C-alpha cells in the first residue's frame, strides 16, 4: 500500500516536472486573470468573457490545426489566407446556391489547401515553411482576385441568423469551436493517428523504421490544419455575415505563437492541445486587458512581443529543467 502511494506521488512529481513549462503558462494565465479581475470592475462580466471568447475563437480553431502540424514536425503559415479564401468562396457560393452549398464549399477549400500543402511537403520534399508560405501568398491572391479586390462580400440579412444564433445565451459559434477542439484533442491524444504524429515529429527516421508511413501522417496533419482553417473561414463568414478576403493577416503568426506559448516544441514531437488552449487564452486576455485599459497600439505591440519572447525562453528551458536553465536541451519524444 505504502509502495503504491510512493509510486503515485512519484508519477505526479514526474508529470509536474515534464509539464513545468505548461504550468508556468497556466500560472501566467491565472495571474493575468486575477490581476485584470481586481483592476477592472467589468472584466469578470459574462459579457466580457463571452466577448473575449468570441474574439479569439478563430485563433483557437486554426491553432488546433497548427498544433497537430507542429507536433508532426511541420509548420503551416497558410492558415490565415486559407481562412480568408474559404470565407470568400463560402460567401460567394452561398449567394448562388444557398447555405448548405456555401458550407460545403468552405470546407472543401480548407481540405484542398491542406492536401496541396501536404502533398508539396511530402511528395516534392519542399520545406514546410516555403510550401505553406507559397500557399499563404497564393490563397490570399486568389481570394482577392475572386472578389475583385473588394474588402468584403456582404450577405443578405436573411443569413444573419447563422452567426448570431445562441444556445443557453452562448453563441452557437463557441459550441462549434468547442467541437473542433474536442475533435482535435481526440485525434492528437487518443487515436492511432495521434501516436503516429508524435512518433514522426520526434524522429521521422525511427518512426519509418517502426513501420509508420511518415508521408501519409504528415499529409493528414496538413489536411487537418487546412480543414481547421476552412472551418475558421466559415466562422468568419457566419459571424460577420460576409465573405472576408482581407481578413486573417498575421493569424498564422499568432497561431504559431499560441502553440509555442503553450510549450509545444517548434521542432516537433512534443506538445499538446491543452497547452495550445492556454496559449490562446493568454494572448486573448492580454489583448483584452490592454484594450480595457486603453493602452496605445504601439505599447500593445511591445507588450505582446515581450510575452512571446518570455514564452519562447521558458519553452527553451524545456521539461524537467526546473532546477536550472538548460540552454541546449533538445530532447525528443519525452512526452
Amino acid at each position, binding site marked *: 500500500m505504502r509502495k503504491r502511494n510512493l509510486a503515485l506521488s512519484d508519477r505526479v512529481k514526474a508529470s509536474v516536472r515534464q509539464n513545468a513549462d505548461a504550468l508556468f503558462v497556466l500560472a501566467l494565465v491565472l495571474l493575468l486573470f486575477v490581476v485584470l479581475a481586481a483592476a477592472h470592475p467589468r472584466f469578470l462580466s459574462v459579457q466580457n468573457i463571452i466577448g473575449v471568447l468570441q474574439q479569439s475563437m478563430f485563433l483557437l480553431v486554426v491553432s488546433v490545426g497548427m498544433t497537430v502540424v507542429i507536433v508532426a514536425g511541420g509548420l503551416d503559415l497558410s492558415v490565415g489566407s486559407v481562412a480568408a479564401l474559404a470565407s470568400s468562396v463560402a460567401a460567394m457560393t452561398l449567394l448562388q446556391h444557398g447555405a448548405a452549398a456555401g458550407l460545403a464549399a468552405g470546407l472543401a477549400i480548407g481540405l484542398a489547401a491542406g492536401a496541396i500543402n501536404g502533398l508539396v511537403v511530402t511528395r516534392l520534399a519542399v520545406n514546410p515553411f516555403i510550401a505553406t508560405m507559397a500557399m499563404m501568398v497564393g490563397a490570399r491572391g486568389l481570394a482577392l482576385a475572386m472578389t475583385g479586390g473588394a474588402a*468584403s462580400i456582404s450577405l443578405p440579412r436573411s443569413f444573419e441568423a447563422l452567426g448570431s444564433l445562441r444556445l443557453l445565451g452562448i453563441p452557437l459559434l463557441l459550441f462549434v469551436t468547442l467541437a473542433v477542439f474536442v475533435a482535435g484533442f481526440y485525434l492528437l491524444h487518443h487515436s492511432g493517428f495521434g501516436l503516429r504524429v508524435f512518433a514522426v515529429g520526434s524522429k521521422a527516421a525511427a518512426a519509418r523504421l517502426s513501420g509508420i508511413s511518415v508521408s501519409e501522417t504528415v499529409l493528414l496533419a496538413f489536411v487537418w490544419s487546412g480543414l481547421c482553417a476552412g472551418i475558421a473561414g466559415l466562422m468568419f463568414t457566419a459571424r*460577420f455575415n*460576409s465573405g*472576408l478576403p482581407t481578413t486573417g493577416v498575421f493569424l498564422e503568426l499568432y497561431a504559431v505563437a499560441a502553440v509555442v506559448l503553450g510549450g509545444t516544441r517548434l521542432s516537433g514531437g512534443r506538445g499538446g492541445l491543452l497547452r495550445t488552449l492556454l496559449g490562446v487564452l493568454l494572448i486573448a486576455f492580454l489583448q483584452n486587458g490592454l484594450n480595457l485599459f486603453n493602452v496605445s497600439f504601439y505599447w500593445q505591440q511591445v507588450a505582446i512581443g515581450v510575452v512571446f519572447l518570455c514564452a519562447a525562453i521558458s519553452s527553451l528551458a524545456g521539461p524537467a529543467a526546473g532546477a536550472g536553465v538548460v540552454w541546449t536541451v533538445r530532447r525528443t519524444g519525452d512526452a
Partner: protein
Amino acid sequence: MGRGTRRVLALFLLATALVLAACGGRPAAPGGEAAKSYTIGVALASATHPLYVAMKVGLEEQAAAMGNVNLRFVQAEEDPVRQLNGIQDLIAQGVDGLLVSPIDAQAAIPGYEAAQAAKIPIFSVARSVDPQYQDAHVGADWSEYGAMIAEHHVAHLGGSGTIALVKGPAGASFVMEMEEGFKRVVSNYPDIKIVAEGNTMLTKDEAARLASDFLTAHPDLDAIFANTDEQALGIITALEDRGLAGKVFLSGFDGIPPAVAAMREGKMHFTIALRPVTWGKKSLVALIEHIEGTPAPALVPIDVLPITQADAASVTDDDLR
C-alpha cells in the same frame, strides 16, 4: 520522385505561371492612328485595395469614353522601390503624362524629378508628395473630412457625451490626418470626451474586437468613430452582441453600398462617400486638360458625398461610384 522529374515539374509550373501572367496582363493596344492620341502611365499604390481597384475602373471607363487615351499601368503593391522602378519604366517608354499615388512621399521623389526632367506632366492621385515636384494633386485634405465627421458627432451628442475612436493602421497618413481634424473640432467642446481610442487593420473582425473591448470598458458609450465603413460594419456586429446597434452613434468613411444599407436599417449614422470611380475619371480628365493647355490648380478637389441617415434612403449604388 527523382530529381529529374522534379526539375521537369518545376519547369512546367514556371511555364504555367508565365502563361497565366501573359493572359492576365493586357498589352497596351497600339494607339496613335489620329494625331491627338495620348499614352498615360499610371502607378497606383495598390492593385488590391478597394479604393484603387475602383479608381482603376474609373480611369479605364474614362479612357474608353475619350477614345484617344491609352493607359499603361505599373503595379507596386505598397512597395515604394517597385513603384519607383515602375515610374522610371513609364518615363523610359515616353508616356505623355503620369498619374501616381506615391506610396512613400520621399521615396517617390526621384521618379517625379525624372518626369520633370523629361518634361512629362505628373499628377499625384489620392496620396501626394511635396507640391513643388508635382503639377497637381487630385485628392483631398483628409483632416477636413475628419472635422466634418466630428461636426456630425457633436451635433448628435448635443454638447456632451463620450466617444471612442476605432482608427485605421497606425502611421497611415489618412488615419493621422482624419484623427487630427476630428480632435480639432471635438476639443472645442469640453463636455465631449474621447474616452478610448485604438488602431486596427481595416477588417471587420479586428474592428469588432477593439470595439467590443471598448464597450466593456465603457458600457455607456455614446458614439463611435470608425476610420472606414468596413470597420464600422464590424463594429455593428459588436454592438449587436450587446443589443446596442442603432443606439450608439456610429460613423464610417468611404461610402460603400453595405454601409449605406446599414444606415437605412438605422444601425449606422454618417459616412462620407469618396466615389472612387468618379475620382479616377476626374484625375484623367484633369491630366488630359492640363496636357492640352488648361493648367490644373495645385489641388484638384474630388467630388465626395456626405451621407446622413436621412439621405441614405435616396442614395443609389451609382451615386457611390
